[in-house]
């Protein structure tokens, strides 16, 4: 049934439909709407789940480590400082091979305090062993959250579903909310491969010497690789039932494009508008939307970008001393091609600054008019700042 929902509400609907059994959360703007709705569902019996109102994000994820290890499906949502506080346990969850699903609402990190969207919080967790999926709109948020449970439980790795603060978390859009019995066909109840059981006692996550540690990490690496193929299979199944499919990446008019803009999150929707305008003027331009970030879809990226002359990556994030994170990863992926497009890295929209079609057009024209990027990262829309003395 189509309903007009906030991005946050779309998450909550997916969690309800997924029959999650334990939810734990700690409030942080702009994640609050998600957990308020879920705790209300738990209180009213719309969800048969226990909500643990912990005293911090660190404890939140630790509580889910306990719950998931004891054999139930779990969920949490956080943002920014909260995700950073979870860092230690992010590693713990993936190495303990727990299929926990989390939503991260992308928000800038302080100082200065800034509650608006910025991807640096989730992208700086890239080496924690979590699958990361970035969403563009409310429908994709709902669909991806449902798929995340299947994917996580299939490969025994945690999944982070990522959405932009406010532009997505607090924006109302029509969202098709599937029926419970349809969802049940896609996502059966959770049956753990291992769990804490007094009838079959064993130890989880003990001391591991150098004799075994490497093999355990290698298994994780294989599971992460497997996640790529599993994701495609799960999307096929989902499409067969609900007729919606997104892909690890989405290439729009990339086949004959000379310049391709690479985006993620809500900037993608704005870029779609510009793309139509530019194509109408005869510009040979394409768009590559990045949905999956971990595992990084190297093959799909090479296929989409391989024939272009130039690629402009728009990063709403920054890794100091290196550049935009998507730009770095895309450059690394393209390295395997014998002939490669020139990659331009643009930094835009940090801390929630609006990225309009005008800004995107400026990026496109800059890329078209220069042969090589003037800098490793080109910061767009910087104003001259007069600091107080």
């Amino acid at each position, binding site marked *: 049934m189509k309903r007009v929902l906030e991005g946050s509400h779309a998450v909550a609907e997916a969690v309800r439909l997924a029959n999650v059994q334990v939810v734990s959360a700690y409030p942080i703007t702009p994640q609050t709407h998600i957990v308020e709705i879920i705790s209300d569902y738990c209180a009213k019996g719309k969800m048969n789940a226990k909500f643990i109102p*912990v005293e911090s994000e660190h404890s939140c994820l630790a509580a889910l480590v*306990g719950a998931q290890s*004891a054999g139930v499906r779990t969920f949490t949502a956080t943002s920014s400082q909260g995700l950073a506080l979870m860092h230690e346990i992010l590693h713990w969850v993936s190495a303990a091979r727990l299929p926990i699903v989390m939503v991260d609402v992308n928000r800038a990190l302080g100082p200065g305090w800034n509650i608006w969207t910025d991807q640096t919080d989730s992208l700086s967790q890239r080496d924690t062993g979590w699958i990361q999926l970035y969403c563009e709109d409310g429908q994709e948020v709902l669909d991806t959250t449902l798929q995340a449970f299947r994917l996580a439980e299939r490969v025994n790795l945690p999944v982070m579903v990522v959405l932009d603060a406010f532009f997505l978390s607090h924006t109302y859009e029509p969202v098709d909310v599937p029926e419970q019995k349809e969802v049940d066909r896609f996502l059966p109840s959770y049956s753990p491969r291992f769990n804490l059981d007094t009838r079959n006692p064993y130890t989880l996550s003990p001391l591991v010497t150098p004799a075994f540690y490497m093999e355990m990490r290698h298994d994780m690496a294989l599971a992460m690789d497997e996640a790529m193929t599993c994701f495609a299979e799960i999307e096929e199944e989902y499409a067969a039932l609900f007729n919606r499919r997104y892909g690890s990446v989405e290439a729009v008019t990339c086949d004959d494009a000379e310049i391709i803009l690479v985006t993620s999150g809500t900037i993608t929707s704005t870029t779609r508008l510009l793309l139509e305008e530019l194509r109408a003027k005869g510009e040979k331009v394409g768009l590559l939307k990045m949905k999956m970030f971990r595992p990084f879809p190297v093959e799909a990226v090479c296929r989409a970008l391989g024939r272009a002359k130039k690629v402009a990556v728009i990063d709403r994030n920054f890794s100091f001393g290196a550049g935009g994170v998507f730009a770095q990863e895309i450059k690394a992926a393209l390295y395997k091609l014998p002939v490669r497009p020139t990659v331009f890295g643009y930094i835009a929209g940090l801390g929630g600054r609006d990225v309009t079609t005008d800004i995107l057009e400026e990026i496109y024209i800059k890329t078209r008019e220069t042969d090589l990027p003037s800098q490793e990262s080109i910061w767009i829309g910087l104003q001259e700042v007069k600091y107080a003395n």
Partner: protein
Amino acid sequence: MQIDAYDREYMCSGHVGCAGCGATIAMRLFMKAMGEKTIMVLPACCWSVIAGPYPQSAMKIPVIHTAFETGGATASGVRAALDMKGDTETSVVTWAGDGGTFDIGFQSLSGAVERNEDFIYVCYDNEAYMNTGIQRSSSTPYGAWTTTTPGQDWKRLRKKNIVEVLVAHRIPYVATANIAFPEDLIRKAQKAKSIKGSKFLHIFASCPTGWRIPSEMSVKIARMAVQTNIFPLYEVEDGIHYTINHKPKEYLVREYFKLQGRFRHLTDKDLDQIQTMVDEDWGLLLKKAGERS
């Protein structure tokens, strides 16, 4: 107390604790009371090692090792999952050191007991971070040498009174116990097991390695901690009802201190001051229990 508790064993020989390790004795006794329907949460501490490396385990019950500061939170999650599965029979226990309880895990513990999660939190107290090589914790007593309170910089601060902090949370049951008093320890574990809500057991567990004592003195010194009133045995129900389980008048604190390498540097004057502190604490406890010395 059930007599058969003594015959049950849920710990195997072949653990990797040091000879005379009080933490190991504490677990063995505690598990006799708990039985097989127990799931144990083990945050980082000496016990992360004592339990044995993969693929071995010294425990016959399910154990989940977890990050250092997460004892309270991880147990809350295990409990929530068991409740969702309709398993009310299994007890959830967190087994943490003093560092994981008094210091880094304090927030997680306070959060869990404020929510009155149905679990038993056991702190085995060896009065320092032993796993990492005898560094001071807020449980390290006044007067002690550790590797981070070395030489003349021995700890000149009081040990945090964790029991009273837990009592202030007004949870159903808080008790102290000691490896040298096995009947009392087992009775308290059984009592904790029978009560719903958050229970806290503070077990004094000597550490030959960190205290610089011979391993065969481990139990004797633990016993002296009670006999000197340094570590009184008592229990508190609902944050109000105090019961002192043992009222000794046997030793002066100096006799306990003189036996341990970690206190070697203390002068007679220091020991007199410590005696005054111990007497004062004991007096406070008697008052709370409504008793006289």
